[in-house]
């Protein structure tokens, strides 16, 4: 068995006196898709944000592709990387946010290409080719010259996905990518994510769309109170939950839909 793509080891995170993550351990294999579910405030976003060090863990380590992420070893001590080294590592993980966060002063094309041009030193023409390629993938190429504010929420989110794809990421992180969307726009974004999943990409997805998680994810992790309360193959966990809290959580989610 080859080593996992992502390894999260004893992850702890607190904000002031609030302990949000209380020791998370998980592994994600190459091409594997994990869905993180759980009640609001249980730490799903925080966990995802620790994976690419948008939040700095208080304890524990992240390994991507066998390499320490966000830290390096000096002797047998772990120290934080410089901002530059961290940025280079972050570039290998794509992240899609609930609020899209496209940059309103740039066209769709530039939103997707700017990091390649300014960070990776890619030639503009090459970066634009790449932008065209990933925008085609999310069916947004025809809007390349538009500014984000002219797009619907679903279109904006698909552009945000293209922006992540342009990084040629080893891993894609989605934090509730459809929660900010009007109901009629959810489908197009889920379809896009589904297509990416079918390409065999590795992803970690926080979602409240239980049916989608069941269909797309290989594995579902139920987080509760800063820890992993139950995990297993998606259909098993969702169809026959064991944990009592998970049962009631799933019940609530089904009621809502």
């Amino acid at each position, binding site marked *: 068995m080859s080593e996992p793509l992502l390894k999260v080891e004893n992850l702890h995170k607190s904000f002031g006196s609030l302990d949000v993550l209380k020791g998370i351990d998980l592994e994600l294999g190459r091409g594997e898709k994990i869905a993180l579910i759980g009640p609001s405030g249980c730490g799903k976003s925080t966990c995802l944000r620790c994976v690419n060090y*948008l939040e700095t863990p208080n304890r524990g380590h992240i390994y991507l592709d066998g390499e320490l992420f966000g830290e390096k070893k000096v002797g047998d001590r772990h120290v934080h990387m410089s*901002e530059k080294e961290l*940025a*280079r590592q*972050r570039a*290998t993980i794509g992240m899609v946010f609930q609020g899209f966060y496209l940059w309103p002063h740039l066209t769709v094309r530039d939103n997707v290409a700017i*990091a390649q041009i300014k960070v990776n030193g890619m030639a503009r023409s090459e970066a634009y080719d790449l932008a065209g390629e990933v925008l085609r993938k999310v069916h947004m190429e025809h809007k390349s010259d538009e500014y984000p504010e002219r797009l619907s929420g679903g279109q904006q989110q698909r552009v945000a996905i293209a*922006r992540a794809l342009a*990084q040629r990421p080893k891993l894609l992180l989605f934090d509730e990518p459809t929660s900010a969307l009007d109901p009629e726009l959810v489908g197009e974004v889920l379809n896009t994510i589904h297509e990416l999943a079918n390409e065999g990409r590795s992803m970690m997805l926080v979602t409240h769309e239980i049916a989608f998680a069941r269909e797309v994810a290989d594995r579902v992790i139920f987080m509760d109170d800063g820890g992993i309360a139950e995990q297993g193959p998606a259909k098993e966990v969702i169809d026959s939950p064991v944990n009592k809290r998970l049962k009631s959580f799933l019940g609530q989610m089904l009621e809502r839909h």
Partner: protein
Amino acid sequence: MIEFLTVYAENWASWWPQIRAAIWVTLGLTGFAYVLAMVVGMLIALGRMSRSALLRGLCKGYVEFMRGVPTLVILFLIYFGLPSFGIVFDAFWAGVIGLGLSMGGYIAEVFRSGLQAIHYGQREAALAVGMTPVQAFRYVTLPLAFRIILPPMLNMLILLLKDSSLAALITAPELMLTAKDLASSTFLPMHLYLLVGVLYLALTLPMSFVARHIEARMRLGAAR
């Protein structure tokens, strides 16, 4: 009325060379002070958002000081006060420094509110694609804040141009002082102060026009 105007025609040849030179001094004062104010303002604004409580406090203190103390007092401190510590600036540069430091406090607040108006998610998205914090600031936060900052910044420039007349009181040979000298040597104060008033207006009106134009465009942009 005609009589009043003929005075200008008669004296124009002797006034204009001095007035023209003074306009350049006024523009120089304003320009250099504005650049200084922007540098100071940016540093203070960043300081006010820093992680260090001490730095935040110092920068807040700077803003409060500049807001509460008249610009004229600052100018006098620099031009008349500092020489007793052996620090001597000529009138022009004392004016630039005084006006710049004073305006810097206001500009810091404009910068800060502009930067804080940018949602943190915009910056995080930049970090997530692999930008360093400096790159995220340079390519995302700053250009976004710029759109918010621009109209008030132009208004600050107009204020500064008018405030540069205060430098007359520390003998900088700018428009106001030149007018005053001419007025007392020709005994034509009404003519001369009216003339500088019109000249200040001629300099500031185009700026107000540009500022209003940009503001209107921004509003359109936001409404789209």
